[in-house]
């Protein structure tokens, strides 16, 4: 199992809702796990949990993060092992309780315990800048800021970057949380026509390093309909390839930045659909 000194705690955050935090948490986690890493996905969205649904584990939830934080259940009882990738686990959020049931000390203890067991602890943050979001980022070594190329998402990301620099354990110790930008729902054609902010615009405004560019794709919805991370459901699809590359960069590999595309010629359009 993981060496707690090497274990990395990642928060997937954005400020704005609906930009793809949960999708990205699932896709990146599954990508790292298929590469042989021990990965746990932790849902911090207490009261509005969805990571279980996107992972297809909604009927297997017995205990949740709050039960573990409050000592009502052991960590091992609450962890749900993925049926497709044995090195991937999920710690679901509670659907009925309030985020105030999460104590700072309880969360610290659970994160420390997870670091003993896993190589990557990936925390799916709730939207907003309230306590739920600051708790999710509290122990992070690395932050992935999920941003759509759209004004309100970029503004909220800027706000979240400010919080990462002030409200995290690292920031309080005078250290820095490593920040990465993940641009999702990107449409290269629209950006090319000047109808959508392009990657350079977003990078210049937020000035943090780029982890990946996930193209807008129906494959993402198709995967969540089926309860499977897009990287498992259709590993060859454009968004999946983008997530695999992002996962490799997260793991320290240097890769050229590309925007994978599903665009096919006429032949592909006519006959390619059937494969889905």
């Amino acid at each position, binding site marked *: 199992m993981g060496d707690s000194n090497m274990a990395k705690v990642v928060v997937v955050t954005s400020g704005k809702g609906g930009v793809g935090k949960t999708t990205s948490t699932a896709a990146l986690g599954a990508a790292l796990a298929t590469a042989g890493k021990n990965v746990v996905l932790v849902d911090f969205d207490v009261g509005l949990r969805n990571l279980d649904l996107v992972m297809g584990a909604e009927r297997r939830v017995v205990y949740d993060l709050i039960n573990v934080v409050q000592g009502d259940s052991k960590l091992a009882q609450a962890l749900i092992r993925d049926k497709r990738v044995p090195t991937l686990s999920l710690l679901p959020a509670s659907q009925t309780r309030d985020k105030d049931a999460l104590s700072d000390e309880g969360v610290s203890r659970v994160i420390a315990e997870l670091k003993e067991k896993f190589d990557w602890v990936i925390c799916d943050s709730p939207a907003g800048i309230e306590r739920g979001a600051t708790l999710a980022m509290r122990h992070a070594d690395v932050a992935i800021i999920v941003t759509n190329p759209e*004004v309100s998402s970029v503004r909220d990301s800027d706000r979240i970057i400010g919080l990462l620099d002030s409200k995290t354990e690292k920031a309080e110790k005078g250290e820095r949380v490593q920040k990465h930008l993940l641009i999702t729902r990107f449409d290269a054609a629209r950006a090319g026509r000047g109808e959508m*902010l392009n990657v350079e*615009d977003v990078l210049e405004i937020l000035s943090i390093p780029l982890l990946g560019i996930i193209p807008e794709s129906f494959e993402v919805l198709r995967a969540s309909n089926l309860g499977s991370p897009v990287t498992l459901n259709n590993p060859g699809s454009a968004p999946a390839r983008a997530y695999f590359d992002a996962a490799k960069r997260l793991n320290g590999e240097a890769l050229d930045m590309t925007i994978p595309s599903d665009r096919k010629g006429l032949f592909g359009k006519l006959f390619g659909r059937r494969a889905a």
Partner: protein
Amino acid sequence: MKLLDFFKRPRTAPVARERLQILLAHERAVSGKSDLIAILQEEIMAVIAKHFPVDSDGIKVKMERGEVVSTLEVEVEIPTPMCPSFPLPAKPAPAEPCAAGGVEAAQTGS
């Protein structure tokens, strides 16, 4: 006409980019300042509390940004019985407690 409009559709992304750059430059400055004001409030409070019994609601610190000069307004309320006997102002006596009136400091630049 409609078809022509379609081909001439203006590029909106540069507008988005410019609006964001202006807005975030302002918001970053403000969020830095609001921290500074909280710190100032705490430190001023500590100094005053050495001499007067004041509670934390009794101090208001406000920063207003102007084009050329910005002002920092500090207002401290002290219960009158605790107040040393400075003469009260003659006629247009303000209803405020004695040491209250804004102690204003101007800060140049913005």
